[in-house]
């Protein structure tokens, strides 16, 4: 099970990985540890303009990322559907990015009693696969999500002089509370990030619900063979229907 390791200010997402892969990870870690920028992938440049920051008041900063397009091939028009490709394209998120995604994913979907958190069911890996895909929609989401990550670190630095992942949970939520709700009186500086964050939120939720544990948590009961006729709605479901038909004056 994947998890976020949090030791002495060193927060890091660890995927469900084999020993062989973990050796690879160690290599990547030592390579990326020195990179100063969060956006460490090729050609990505953060040119966030935070010049108009005065004291604590922040006016609409948004990172202007230039990402070089992902040009690897997709899985093509005739992939095996019986054994879907496990790694259809190289994943591109850096350890720092992945860790931030993991922290956010677990804020969005934390552990809930017996139900695992987003990270525990490898949601960050799904996000990584998603933003690394060579298709139009995913590349558009990639710009959006990488921008969110930069924005959050910029915001964290402005408010607390540290990157987002090493903030205390309370500090993290102070920022998240400002960007997680679409409301009429939203301050101008949050309009963009609220919109982009909303897309990211749905991606994380989708990835969570697509995991076996998430599917169970959602309550989906299908994808099982039924012998004989389709049973149709349960008695309980019919009682509920009759109640709403009454309420809607449709009887």
């Amino acid at each position, binding site marked *: 099970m994947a998890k976020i390791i949090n030791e002495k200010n060193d927060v890091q997402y660890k995927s469900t990985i084999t020993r062989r892969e973990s050796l690879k990870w160690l290599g990547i870690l030592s390579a990326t540890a020195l990179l100063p920028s969060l956006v460490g992938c090729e050609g990505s440049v953060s040119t966030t303009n935070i010049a108009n920051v005065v004291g604590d008041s922040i006016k609409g900063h948004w990172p202007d990322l230039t990402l070089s397009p992902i040009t690897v091939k997709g899985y093509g*028009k005739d992939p095996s559907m*019986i054994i*879907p490709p496990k790694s259809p394209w190289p994943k591109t998120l850096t350890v720092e990015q992945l860790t931030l995604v993991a922290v956010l994913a677990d804020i969005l979907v934390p552990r809930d009693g017996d139900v695992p958190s987003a990270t525990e069911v490898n949601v960050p890996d799904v996000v990584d696969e998603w933003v690394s895909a060579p298709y139009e929609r995913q590349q558009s989401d990639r710009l959006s999500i990488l921008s969110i990550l930069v924005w959050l670190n910029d915001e964290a630095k402005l408010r607390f002089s540290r990157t987002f992942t090493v903030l205390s949970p309370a500090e993290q939520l102070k920022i998240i509370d400002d960007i997680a709700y679409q409301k009429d009186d939203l301050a101008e500086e949050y309009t963009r990030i609220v919109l982009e964050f909303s897309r990211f939120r749905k991606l994380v939720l989708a990835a969570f619900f697509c995991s076996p544990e998430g*599917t169970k948590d959602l309550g989906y*009961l299908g994808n099982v*063979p039924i012998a004989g006729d*389709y049973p149709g709605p349960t008695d*309980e479901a019919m009682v*509920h229907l009759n109640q*709403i038909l009454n309420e809607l004056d449709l009887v």
Partner: protein
Amino acid sequence: MKDFDYEVVVVGSGAGGAMAAYTLAKAGHKVLMLEAGRDYDPKTETPMFKTNGQAPLMGAGNIDKDFGFYDATVDGGWQVPNEPYTTGDTSDFMWWRARMLGGRTNHWGRYSLRFSEHDFKGKTRDGLGADWPFEYEELAPWYDKTETLVGICGTNTGLDDMPDSAEGVLQPPPKARIPELLVSAAAKKLGIATAPMHRAVLTRPKDDRQACFYATPCGHGCSIGAAFQTTTSLLPMAKATGNLKIITDAMVRSVDVDEKGQANALTYVDKKTGKDIKLAAKVIILAASACESARLLLNSKNTHHPNGLANSSGQVGRNLMDSTGTGVGAHIPALEGRPIYNEDGHTANHLFIPWWGHKQHAKGELDFPRGYHFEIGSGFRAPGSGVSGNLQGYGKELKDQAKQYYGAGVYLALRGEMLPNEHCYMEIDDKVTDKWGIPVAKFHWKWADHELKQVEHGLKTARKILETMGATFTRPLPSADKAILKGGQIIHEVGSTRMGESPKDSVTNQHGQTWDCKNVFVMDAGVFASNPHKNCTLTIMTLAMRNATWLAKQLNKGAL
């Protein structure tokens, strides 16, 4: 094929080609089938019970797999690699192709509604489009035979847009689900009936195909044969007679003629070697899909047929029609947090809204000439790459909202009849060829007011039904020209080699026999004289069965 003395060559293995081949093979005639795509076996290739979580990108669609990772379509979709098509400057048109044995029957919606008496004689009624060269009564017994062979679930409703099948033909439909029952109640209040959708899905076993077990979407294909596709039914059944042989990866380049202009051969590209192979042919049935068959005829030019084979009327490629398509979806507060149960069913809508306006049309109360129906999208669906609802916040609060919204959305998809018009046609693009050097199809498209007014009516009606279910709309409906989907997008393209009473304005007679070449037939949707809103596949198969039966008699008589 030296050891196989075939009488008929069929181009295409989808609905029309497979039914034609099956019918002829059963009647004792040897058939050679050419399929442009690869061999395909649903028994071993269908991703049964696979979850979206097991697929790349949670199964989401993209340019490689337009309808999602698990869509059965192989080597096709809106684009086929190295086999382009083009459009006129002001035209939007989308052309779905599959390059696989069984063609598009491997992934189709299995909606199987009969055309009704209104549908065959539209021109007689309102002066628009073209009449078919026969009445509903002529086709009714063939519908019975086709439905029996294919296996269709549904009921006889007695509704004027849904002609009854003969006693005992239809298999029982599955029970309706909660959101469908709510739609039904709301529509009823507005004076609109709902009915069980007719689908080519077995609810009782048939030959060696099993009954549906109500799981895994039909669009993925069906390894147990419950959801009809030619690869689990007509093709193996025809092969079992010993009278059908199939060559896959055979892309037909042209129909060839002798010195008198009589069709006597086909040339196809063997895709595996890239070599052209010429095949003698006594009788040729084109069933490559409406636009591929028309493209093939137009590309089969020679001194005897300078405008393309069977095109003395100039109608090949003309009269191209698709279904109109749009839809309105809404969140239904009354369905929030409802009791969960398994709503997979046969994985498409169990109830739908048939066209209810024939009487209004007769009274002149509608400002558009042809009807439509609504398909209902709803249910506790398998999780995928999308999560619906206007979700806010994070943590438990967020998950609770998502659960509250789960299964509370309802979508009404409109599928309507369009009329042929002079702006909607296909021709050959003389500047572009595909990988095999075959000139490609070029499409021209423009919706007419008939379709836009129909869509406008449909949008309003859908909204009214959803509002009656308690939905609220904060934004106005889109205008019809914005809401209508693109030409071709519903994948019901028909009419490009239409049948008729006269060689002057049609390409084939009522048997799909081309007027110009007695031994060349068309048995796909190209022959449709009109495009009723009811999904074309059942009628493609019914016509192919009827017309191949007629052809078998001609062969027996030595008439060809």
